[in-house]
């Protein structure tokens, strides 16, 4: 990346991401993830799958997330995914993916559209059942879904029984953190 004079700030408005601990629960803001949406162009669905495979970019099945060495993804809608990558290495994720997929897919930078919180706790069910209607108990690891948390549209990814990622709209970062904290205290 070119060196430029602008200093980034996190969605919560700080220089560095914050981690909040409430009881056994940790809410960690993640600031090191680059995101881009990827949608197959019409008639290019097979081609997109092929390119993704060749690029070691795992495309998740519906309601799922997938992880790979350089890229991860979660499903957004029919033939559309959110691609996750390391920010330091791939701040310019849009340009990179455009290079890989050419005219087979529509790619849009999404990195700063979202705030990401990684929530860990010994038992996440009591916390998340106060936040959204996702049935965490019944969901497998890797489950990913859009959901509503206190009026805020979010994506929730169950990484493991002890780790859930919540992507929320960046502008609502403070409100989203507040409701997660409140629920964590309420458990």
């Amino acid at each position: 990346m070119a060196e430029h004079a602008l200093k980034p700030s996190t969605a919560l408005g700080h220089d560095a991401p914050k981690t909040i601990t409430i009881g056994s629960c940790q809410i960690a803001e993640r600031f090191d993830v680059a995101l881009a949406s990827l949608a197959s162009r019409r008639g290019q669905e097979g081609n997109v799958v092929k390119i993704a495979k060749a690029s070691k970019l795992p495309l998740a099945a519906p309601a799922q997330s997938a992880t790979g060495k350089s890229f991860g993804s979660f499903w957004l809608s029919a033939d559309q995914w959110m691609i996750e990558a390391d920010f330091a290495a791939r701040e310019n994720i849009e340009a990179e993916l455009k290079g890989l997929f050419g005219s087979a897919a529509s790619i849009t930078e999404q990195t700063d559209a979202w705030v990401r919180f990684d929530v860990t706790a010994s038992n996440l069910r009591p916390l998340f059942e106060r936040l959204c209607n996702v049935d965490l108990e019944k969901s497998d690891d890797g489950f990913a879904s859009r959901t509503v948390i206190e009026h805020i549209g979010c994506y929730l990814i169950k990484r493991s029984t002890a780790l859930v990622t919540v992507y929320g709209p960046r502008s609502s970062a403070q409100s989203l953190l507040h409701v997660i904290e409140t629920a964590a205290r309420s458990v």
Partner: protein
Amino acid sequence: MTQNNRIAGGLIDRSKTLNFSFDSKVYTGHAGDTLASALLANGVRLMGRSFKYHRPRGPLSAGSEEPNALVELRTGARQEPNTRATVTELYDGLEANSQNRWPSLAFDALAINDRLSNFFAAGFYYKTFMWPKAFWEKLYEPLIRRAAGLGSMSKLEDPDSYDKGFVHCDVLIIGAGPAGLMAALTAGRAGARVVLADEDFRFGGRLNAETFDVDGKSCADWATAIVAELKSLPNVRLMLRTTVIGAFDHGIYSAVERVSDHLAEPFPGKPRQTLWRIYSRRAILAGGATERPIAFENNDRPGIMLAGSLRAYANRWGATVGDKVAVFTNNADGLRTVQDLKAKGVDVVAVIDSRNGDEVVDTSGWLGLASVTVRRSDGKTETIAATGLAVSGGWNPNVNITSHHRSKPIWNEAIAAFVPGEGGPANLVAAGAADGVFSTYGALQSGQARAIEALNELGLKVKAAALPQAEDSPVSIKPLWFVHSGKGRAWIDFQNDVTVKDIKLAHQENFSSVEHLKRYTTLGMATDQGKTGNVIGLAVMAELTGRSIPETGTTVYRPPYTPVAIGALAGRSRGKEFKPFRLTPSHKWATEQGAIFVEVGMWLRTQWLPRNGETHWRQSVDREVVATRKSVGICDVTTLGKIDIQGTDAGAFLDKVYANTFSTLAVGKCRYGLILREDGIVYDDGTTARMGTHEYVMTTTTANAVTVFRHLEFVRQCLYPDMDVQLISTTEAWAQYSVAGPNARKLLLKIIDQDISDVAFPYMGAGNITVCGGLRARLFRISFSGELAFEIAVPTRYGDALIRKLVEAGEEFDAVVYGTEALGVMRIEKGHVAGNELNGQSTALNMGLGKMVSRKKDSIGMVLSQREGLNDPNGYRLVGVKPVNTQQALTAGSHFLELGAAPVVANDGGWLTSMVYSPHIGSHIALGYLKAGDQKIGKRMRAVNFLNKTDVEIEIVSPHFFDPEGERLRG
């Protein structure tokens, strides 16, 4: 006080003594008591006053059906009116006060209403307060409101919080009596995800209130053992103190968990209550049954209680209503009370079994029962001294939730009660007493059977395990609804003071359908929703009309099953947490600068930025406008909706969505567009840029960002399913600032890495650039202010740094940061439409933009925008408005009138949509929709506003007040 009426046994913990007060008098009770059981143990029978007649009342029941024993619980901000003492768990330090009485519970001045009861019969209000009409608002209503109601509110903000949550299960079991426990055990052992919810603070239901054995142990011990097994199963979730209040579609139930009601106050961070939304695949209603009284003269005195409740107080709580108790029953179950009281050493002074022709005809004792008058089958009457009277008129299955989808319960003659009917919630079945199965063995069997059926439907094969041994007595009842003698009042609905006389009156006056009966007499309309009274009321009506009970019919039950605090329904959405907020990238900087914010949807936007001791908002706004037009101003425009539209058909798609054409837009250019609704009305506007051959970026208004996106998806999926178009919102991804004014380019040149001269970046240009030495950014040369203006966007994380950089770079130009007010002034000076003009009623033609609607292509709204009614040459047109006297203010919402025309609707010419003070014009200016406005430019009219009482002479002008030729923005 000592606990004089405390007797042996029970499920209370006598090693834990709790102090509490009622009407400031201090008492003691034990852990496991309710407020009602503890008061009874202390010899207190009088706990409340009735609603209308202010009759002294004690508890009728021992559960959530209680109509009488309502108190104000707690004090200060936590004071809670109309709390049922019968379900209030005792805690140390509990404070309760009686209500609906003055000056005291024992002496209540309004008890005079009781003497005047002839005047207060059903329909009293309807008949009395009819005329004179003028008296209603000033006299009658305030008077009635003062006398009405039961408890009072603290009027302080509730200090507690309430949660909402979601629970998922295979089988929801409502109620944990014998049927519910057996169902839970069966489903739990089969491995299903089970939720067992009970409103009580101890599982077991009637098993905690009876003395017979189940499986060789006391029924309460059996329940305890089952609960212990259920607790050990990880797939079973036990929800105590949780009332399922309603059934909704497709297996969704809602329940209130009283998380902290049994504590003086919640633990820090913990909610007072939680409202659960329960998703269930199958549900079993095992909610038991509620006993009903019998109506006879003066059947409402403190000390007169339902027989099953009286025995519950004795068996579960070791409390008796008094030392001498009579029992009046029309069924065999009532006799259990006789047997249990005797076993506890309570003197049963009389057994009046109406099946033998004996009846209670009257009682005495004003503040508490003193005697019972009995008429034996041989016609002889006798008066027996008694401090308690147990009454059983039979049991009503708690069918309520089964009729939440309007299913009507059906009459079962054998048990003389309504049982669940057809057409209830699709995944719900009733078991045990709720289904009319009253014996303990029957309940166990029914609970097990319903559970097995549910499990089989879910694909789990289970065999019936051996059922425990338990009593299996048949129901023996001979219905008796009211005692046919005496001239006095016999109560049916205790809380609303509805008596047999009222039903007779309703019948006399032809309000004999159950729905009319209910509304005319207010039967069943109190906080208890007639749990004890409704069936008696309609049985009395049936008898009066000579119809059977099934012919008479019943009203249906609606949610909630028991009263719900509004706080529980609000959850966390109150005060500052009412809704989430959205912050712009410049928010932190603006806060440091002392900006004033305005809520726009969920966004907080800078409204204006006070400087140099400015005290009035107009000073700040005028300064921001003048400085922008003179040199340069910066404004955060991130909130505008941004939608990325890509694909080989993106241009064709936009041609469908927009009234004007976008497929012909050159790469690197943007264009203003109008989105119409299919009915031809303008939906939204904004500029859309073509960033590449197959890449567009659409902007929407802040308010419509979400709905426009929805609309685009509709067009894409439902109307043109095979267009090659992909959509994603990027509103949040980019921090976008408008830099406007004659020095805008000079300012931006200091941070932009490329050439942005008029040649390289002409008006309506758009492109990807870099700023500050290499950061990817977007630049759009668009203007809302009418000035030379650019909108510059960087990834949001750099937005805070960019606003600081822009302000710093702008110092040499005396740049200002302006807010939404200055933005509004400048757009009105330019005659640009915004929310007030995009009001969902206006066409492009109304806005003066009729030519934008292309008829060369098929776009949404194009066809119906041609409708005759929308194309009246004398219809509304957007105009500018100036006051003739520049010192006079204009008011938005004022109506156009011809000079000298009477201010009547027929003369209405339209209205002023937006108004500002323009520092450049030197007066107020406004936009408005004026009939035939385009033909009235230069004309003088009036702007009349009845609300503000203003009547201002105005001149109609072009809406383009400032730089009408647009020379500045092309500079």
